């Protein structure tokens, strides 16, 4: 499977998140060793509540699916709830360290539960 963005990155260099490629195609119910590291990434950028690292499991659970969906929406990706090629490519791309957990602009539509 080809990850287009990766073809320009030399794998010998220290690309912090390159190992997340192994989670490609994971979806709800998957259990992949090391997925807790990916959950830390999602915590780091504001998509999962901060909890003790020891409580992060390697299971793709409901909370993580919700985080992936929010990530896909925020980053303008197709919303699949899975770690598809575009999503993984985006996750491993170099980025700004500022969290994505920001306030929505006032004019933007949002949904409230009533």
């Amino acid at each position, binding site marked *: 499977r080809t990850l287009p963005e990766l073809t320009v*990155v030399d794998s010998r*260099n*220290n690309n*912090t998140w390159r190992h997340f490629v192994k989670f490609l195609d994971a979806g709800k119910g998957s259990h992949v060793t090391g997925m807790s590291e990916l959950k830390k990434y999602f915590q780091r950028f504001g998509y999962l509540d901060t909890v003790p690292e020891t409580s992060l499991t390697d299971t793709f659970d409901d909370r993580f699916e919700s985080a992936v969906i929010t990530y896909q929406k925020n980053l303008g990706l197709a919303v699949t709830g899975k770690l598809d090629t575009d999503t993984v490519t*985006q996750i491993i791309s170099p980025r*700004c360290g*500022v969290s994505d957990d*920001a*306030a929505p*602009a006032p004019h933007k539509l949002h949904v409230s539960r009533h």
Partner: protein
Amino acid sequence: YAYFHGQPRWARSSPMTLTYAFSPVNIIHYVSQSDLKAVFERAFSRWSAVIPVNFTEANNYWAADIKIGFYHGDHGDGEAFDGVLGILAHAFSPENGRFHLDAAETWAVDFGSEKSKVAVDLESVVTHEIGHILGLAHSSVKQAVMYPSLSPRTKKVDLRLDDVEGVQSLYGSNPNFKFSSLLASDTSISVG
């Protein structure tokens, strides 16, 4: 576009002037001082072209509103850098002014002379971080400067409509700015 929680902005009388300065210690030396200053000057001028905010370089780093530095790893603000690629830079919301770039990156001012496959365009990242300094958070519009990621050897320096509308909502418009000056497509990619 999006804002930080509470929509913080620099609260000065308009037109406001913000000063910036480079850390005398935490700096990179493989980019010349003149190139470095020119990059920041161009990046600041893009934002000041659309809002009534001027940026001027100050000599006194500690007294400047915006404090710029290149740092390795854990540099004391709780947001450690991570080496080559990964996190490239970060900046703080108004009116903090801290502007940090990862010294481990191969920062490029010209992809013609910098051939590294992991070279990152300094001007693109600087332009993005200035958006944070002004109060913009990340955008979901891929073409916008405020989109959070940037691939190596990619240049994205021109503000898009989403960036302009966001920052003008915070500061108002520069009276000389015309929306017609925005390009339909202003993202260029250079793969060496």
